[in-house]
């Protein structure tokens, strides 16, 4: 598709020319909009979540999925070798995603799928889907999620795979959940992998961290019960409000390519597919973690138990994004200071908070790293 801004006409510097340029550009912009409108009207369905999976357990709005290895990939469940020819990792991987947005970001489309890459590396992959909580779930606390749902899912995976422990892989807020779980139930976690995970909430270089500190979370939770997705999305949009405009202007020039358009729409689908947040859990996450920084202070209470990061003695792989504007490195890397693990590794992946999962470099780097690291510790 042509560029939006026309540079035709050699004569410059007079009003007539300027008016012509303005009119041409306006026409060009509207022409692109018209084409986009036409292309978008034909879109009936934006397919996301490309890998085959089956639900093996559910409780209300929470589902646990087991992903299937592709037929002929040589990496089916129980095989001794992965598709890449490496020895198979026997301990299954349980992915714990954040409550914010949907977990299919890890399986967006066949060529942008961390799940697919992990399967190809011979790992058995399970994933928790937190679903869309309704008003009936607004009382759920952090403890209900971690000691309840995560623990239930770990038990189901252990039974399904006939193992005693799982490899826990937590993403963003799900990484915080996984870290807390590993501290509370260390015997159930063989290895802990955290991806772009906030740990130390006292850092000063993340806007969400700064904003959350001033937030009156009680007012919001008391009013809504389930905190609406729009409230969270408004915050995410304000992180880079101008770059967002540029993104859409860029997309305007590419929507005549169906494949690129669908790639763009899948990301858009994911960005705005945001479940509401169960109020009590949200209240505790903001008040105890963002505002109180109780996880690293060792004073976070879940039910009657106190979370002690020193209990995390299993091997830890802590992966962070080089240009993460949502969870700053300082917050992520702080984990090393507080865990009791001797086998601990930081690993930097190029890209932003989302890019490390869907970017082309990440596709080649992240899954092989996770697989080889786990293989050495299986």
């Amino acid at each position, binding site marked *: 598709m042509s*560029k939006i*801004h026309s540079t035709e006409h050699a004569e*410059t*510097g007079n*009003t*007539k020319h*300027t*008016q*012509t*340029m*303005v009119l041409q*550009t306006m*026409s060009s*912009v*509207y*022409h*692109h*909009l018209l084409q*986009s409108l036409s292309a978008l*009207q034909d879109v009936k369905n934006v397919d996301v979540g490309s890998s085959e999976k089956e*639900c*093996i*357990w*559910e*409780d*209300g709005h929470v589902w646990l999925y087991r992903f299937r290895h592709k037929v002929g990939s040589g990496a089916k469940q129980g095989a001794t070798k992965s598709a890449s020819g490496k020895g198979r990792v026997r301990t299954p991987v349980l992915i714990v995603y954040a409550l914010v947005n949907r977990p299919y970001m890890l399986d967006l489309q066949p060529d942008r799928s961390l799940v697919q890459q992990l399967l190809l590396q011979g790992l058995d992959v399970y994933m928790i889907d937190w679903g869309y909580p309704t*008003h*009936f*779930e*607004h009382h759920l606390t952090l403890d209900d999620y971690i000691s309840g749902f995560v623990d*239930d899912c*770990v*038990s*189901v995976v252990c*039974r*399904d795979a006939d193992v005693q422990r799982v490899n826990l892989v937590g993403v963003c807020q799900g990484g915080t959940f996984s870290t807390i779980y590993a501290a*509370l*139930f260390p*015997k*159930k976690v063989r290895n802990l992998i955290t991806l772009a995970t906030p740990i130390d909430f006292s850092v000063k270089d993340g806007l969400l961290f*700064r904003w959350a*500190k001033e*937030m*009156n979370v009680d*007012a*919001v939770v008391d*009013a809504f*019960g389930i905190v609406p997705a729009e409230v969270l999305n408004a915050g995410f949009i*304000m992180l*880079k*409000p*101008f*770059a967002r*405009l*540029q993104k*859409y*202007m860029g*997309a*305007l020039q590419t929507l005549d390519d169906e494949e690129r358009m669908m790639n763009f*729409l899948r990301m858009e689908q994911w960005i705005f597919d945001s479940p509401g947040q169960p109020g009590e859990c949200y209240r505790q996450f903001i008040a105890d973690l963002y505002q109180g920084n109780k996880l690293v202070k060792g004073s976070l209470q879940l039910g009657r138990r106190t979370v002690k990061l020193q209990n995390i003695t299993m091997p830890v792989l802590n992966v962070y994004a080089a240009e993460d504007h949502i969870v700053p490195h300082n917050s992520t890397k702080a984990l090393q200071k507080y865990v009791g693990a001797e086998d601990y590794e930081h690993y930097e992946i190029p890209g932003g908070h989302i890019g490390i999962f869907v970017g082309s470099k990440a596709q080649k780097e992240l899954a092989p790293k996770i697989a080889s690291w786990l293989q050495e510790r299986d």
Partner: protein
Amino acid sequence: MSKQSTPDQSANDFYSTWMERQNALVASWANAAQQSTAAMMQGNVAEAMKHGAEAYTATMEHQTASAKQMMNPFGAWFSPQASPNGASKANDATTFPFMNVPFMNIPFMNTPFSEANPMMQAWQNAFRQNPFGQNPIMQNPFVQPWMQAASGAVPGFEQWSKFAEAGASSFAMMGQVAKMYEQWQHLSQSWSISVQKMYSSMADTMPAGVAQDTFRNMLSGANVYMKLFERWMPALELMKSGKPLKAEDLQSLMNPAQYKEVIDAVFEFMIPEQMQSLVKQMSAFTQSMNVSTNQAARILMGQMEQNASMIFGMMSHNPEAAVNVYNTLMSSYQQALSTISALPMNQRQSEMVAVGQEILSRLGEYSQAVTKFQHLLYTNGQKALEKMTEATFAAGRNKKAVSNFDEVFKTWVEMNEEVFHDLFETKEYAVMQSNLAKISSHLYNNFEHLFEIMLKDFPVVTRSHVDELAKTVFELKRKVRDLEKHDAYSEADAEPTNAKSNGKSTSTKAPAHKK
């Protein structure tokens, strides 16, 4: 350099005036609402009307005066009368710290318009000759109305073009040429707005979902892009041609009143019409629930709607519209008070009046907070614009003029991200944002409360019913879960094969397969 002669100062004065005006309006309005509601509750109609009328009149006078003052906020700075010695400050190069080139007159409009002029050709190419005619998208039923409407605008452009052609040959004075340019800008903007409205209507017909949302976001991005393009194109073209800039070019770039529209579009501030619509919907719902049973509530909601309409209507900077709103308000105010005075209030009505009063007060609080918030964004937007202007002119001086507008747009995005990131990092911003969320949440609670009171006698499930049930369900589920865990842990304790380190937590017994 005098205090009033810098672009910064003028812009800040504009935004400060805007904020003061909004705050004064809100304070006056809130006061009137409080007084009238209090008087209503006491049944003192005459007193309520007296205070209410006085307060509203004062509000209107203030609003009309300040709106007039706002009409040309940057004019004084650029006006030839602005300087004590009669010279335009815009002609004083020292007033622009980033410019070291003197302002000079440039040959403008030196060729007449004709049917063959490139602008008309572009227009005709775009619409009259219909480049999309052979395109399959023309088969699309949504495109046709748009094309028809666009074609309908052609005569308007032609008429303007003839006027421009006639005028161009005789307009020698710079001011007249600038005026023409301004007229042209208005015309192109009107066209742009009408086309965008059409697009927006077309988006309405798309199935709701990601494609529709994406299109709306693109429309929004294009809107900002075009607003900027219109402002920047004249200056960029001059820079490319190596010709110096004059005051009008800078005025177009730096005018805060116009730039406010850009910032409004970026942050998608809720415009007055949307707020009015929201209040009307709320009011209509309330009225429909009460129509047969509670006239007082209906009257109260009518008052609220009118008051809200007034306050949001004022935000449009249109004094004439404000006068109309005022007249409507006063008429319904009198009607409402005369009716309510004839009705005895029961307890439910009193409760509703009290909550209604709280909502009015909260709306005032919200309006003030959002005004401060917007002010902060406007002034920072202006700061970024000035930084960008400085950088662009510096590039021009170094013979590195930008070659197309996409580069300008990219620079604009980058500089704004930088400036706004600095702002967003401040505690002041975080507190302000948090305050807005808090007031909105309280307002939401107030409306919930109002509905609860109204729905009390109806066989309808209310929020508190749902909350109560949800709590019971949650507590029962938690008990079941605890029992299941306890059972699992007990069995695990009995199994010697299971390792045990932290008491209960070592069990790997799976919970019941609930699928």
